[in-house]
């Protein structure tokens, strides 16, 4: 029996799975899509950048939107963009943030930008999975 267009099941869930994995582990989406060089580069670079943020005494901003401090909420969303490393660092007790440290703001910038860059990487993986790239 021939399957017509309505019967064909597109691997739509794969796109979502790839997006979730790409968020959770930097570079995992590209690795799953066969872009090994890009995946490994993202994995190493973004993980190192986030770790550098912690090393520079940056803070992992807490989730939970406090209307009196909207920038903290936005920073938390950006931090969360890095995926599992966010939770691993929290679990290991890193990212308390030493406000008096001279590198505190640098550390925040490294961790926040690592999360934001990983969001871009997720979008790139999504485009590849969609066949746009």
């Amino acid at each position, binding site marked *: 029996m021939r399957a017509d267009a309505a019967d064909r099941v597109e691997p739509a869930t794969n796109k979502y799975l790839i997006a979730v994995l790409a968020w959770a582990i930097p570079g995992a989406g590209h690795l799953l899509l066969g872009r090994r*060089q890009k995946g490994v*580069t993202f994995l190493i670079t973004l993980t190192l950048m986030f770790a550098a943020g912690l090393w520079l005494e940056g803070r992992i901003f807490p989730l939970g939107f406090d209307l009196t401090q909207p920038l903290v909420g936005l920073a938390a969303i950006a931090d969360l963009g890095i995926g599992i490393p966010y939770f691993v660092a929290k679990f290991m007790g890193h990212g308390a943030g030493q406000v008096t440290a001279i*590198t505190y703001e*640098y550390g925040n910038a490294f961790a926040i*930008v*690592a999360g934001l860059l990983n969001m*871009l990487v997720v979008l790139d993986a999504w485009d590849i999975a969609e066949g746009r790239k």
Partner: protein
Amino acid sequence: MTSHVALMALFSLFVSVVFATLMRDEPRDQALFGLRLFGGFMAAGIVIGWLLYPLPL
């Protein structure tokens, strides 16, 4: 490490590598684009630093 320039260079390096990898497919193109980005970040940082130098911050 507390040197502003060294931290700026490290930050620029990370961002350049990610953008170059995202925007170019061939390793040679990635390397060239990454180097240009890195140079641009460093030059812009130094130029803006000097422009801000006279300001009373």
